């Protein structure tokens, strides 16, 4: 038995050479890279960026829904919504933990988020004005997230893949409860049906944007695919998602807001209208409908929780002192 090897072999070119060969071997064999393995600096950086953005998305993603906890139409729906928001917090924690194995601290990631230096999924910068938005978020936003996340369970970085397995298991309840909210509204009064359709109209396009820019404008995709972090291209995943939505929309009785949406038999894919990428860029750049509000709320929560973190640390220190004295 020896102590775990140093994460950094920067000072030892021979060890770095062996490490690189081992890394290439692991990737070629579609095996997994673990935290103590040597890895290229760019691989580490890419993962830190991707996993921390993903974690931030889960944490910020609590806000649009927690907005409705106090106004949920029944006690059952309130309990479900609370469970879902609690899940999002848990997902954020799994992902922050995975990112921490790459050598970045939780505090640094939190600082990046609240200082506006880190990104999170642009979808959470849209407001949730009606109860039907809880349905549309579950069905469309969580649906798109699942589509993106299932292949990530096989990401080459072990801790990331393991976090994703856990998240995907819990995520399917999120999508189903959203679908059920919409279904109940669609079986309700005319006003309720309109509310459901309006929410679908507002969330459909942003949920398609969640898969990221078109393949030819996604410069990092090729490298991520070569590293087995990403398994399918943005456009392929978007197609797969739309393919799932079409029959589900029929069951709901809602119309997907795209007049050009049609199955193309010759190409075995859906034809659809051009996505408004200017809107995507604007929201990503911080000029979406709720960017400022989301960050302000996150900062407040962080500041207001400072005394809890201090108290916990102080309590731990005192307990350690007492047990040392005993």
């Amino acid at each position, binding site marked *: 038995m020896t102590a775990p090897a140093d994460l950094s072999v920067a000072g030892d070119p021979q060890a770095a050479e062996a490490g690189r060969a081992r890394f290439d071997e692991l990737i070629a064999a579609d095996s997994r890279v673990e935290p103590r393995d040597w890895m290229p600096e760019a691989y580490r950086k890419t993962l830190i960026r991707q996993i921390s953005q993903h974690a931030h998305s889960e944490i910020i993603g609590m806000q649009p829904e927690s907005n409705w906890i106090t106004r949920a139409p029944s006690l059952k729906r309130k309990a479900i919504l609370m469970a879902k928001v609690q899940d999002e917090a848990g997902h954020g924690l799994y992902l922050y933990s995975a990112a921490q194995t790459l050598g970045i601290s939780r505090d640094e990631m939190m600082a990046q988020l609240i200082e506006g230096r880190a990104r999170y999924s642009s979808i959470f910068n849209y407001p949730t004005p009606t109860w039907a938005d809880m349905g549309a978020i579950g069905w469309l936003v969580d649906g798109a997230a699942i589509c993106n996340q299932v292949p990530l369970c096989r990401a080459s970085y072990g801790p990331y893949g393991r976090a994703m397995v856990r998240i995907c298991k819990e995520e399917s309840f999120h999508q189903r409860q959203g679908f059920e909210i919409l279904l109940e509204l669609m079986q309700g009064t005319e006003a309720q049906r309109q509310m459901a359709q309006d929410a679908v109209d507002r969330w459909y396009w942003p949920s398609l944007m969640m898969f990221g820019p078109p393949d030819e404008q996604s410069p990092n995709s090729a490298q991520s695919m070569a590293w087995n972090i990403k398994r399918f291209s943005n456009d392929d995943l978007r197609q797969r998602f739309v393919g799932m939505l079409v029959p589900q929309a029929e069951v709901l009785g809602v119309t997907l807001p795209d007049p050009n949406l049609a199955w193309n038999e010759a190409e075995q894919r859906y034809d659809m209208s051009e996505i408004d990428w200017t809107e995507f860029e604007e929201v990503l750049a911080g000029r979406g409908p709720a960017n400022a509000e989301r960050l302000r709320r996150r900062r407040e929560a962080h500041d207001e929780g400072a005394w809890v973190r201090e108290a916990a640390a102080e309590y*731990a220190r005192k307990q350690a002192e007492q047990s040392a004295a005993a």
Partner: protein
Amino acid sequence: MSTPGETGTEPWPLWEVFVRANRGLSHVHVGSLHAPDADMAVRNARDLYTRRNEGVSIWVVPAVAITTSDPDAKGAFFESPAGKNYRHAVYYTKSEGVKHL
């Protein structure tokens, strides 16, 4: 160098979490978390890893207390069982078709 995730910049220590799904089963590693002390680690582990009845018992272990085999010496360290497939039942094929063997 310590356990991955356990860096000097983290204010709280890292804990490895083990959950027993049911009586009669062993505790299985499910993940890790940061917490100021063992009590808080157990409470946080409950909230984080057992929201859906995944367990009836939780262990938390300070990550620094874990000693690992050297990951780079993998080949040499685990060499002994290699080539000893006679340690597995499937090595013995002559008894094929014989019942209860």
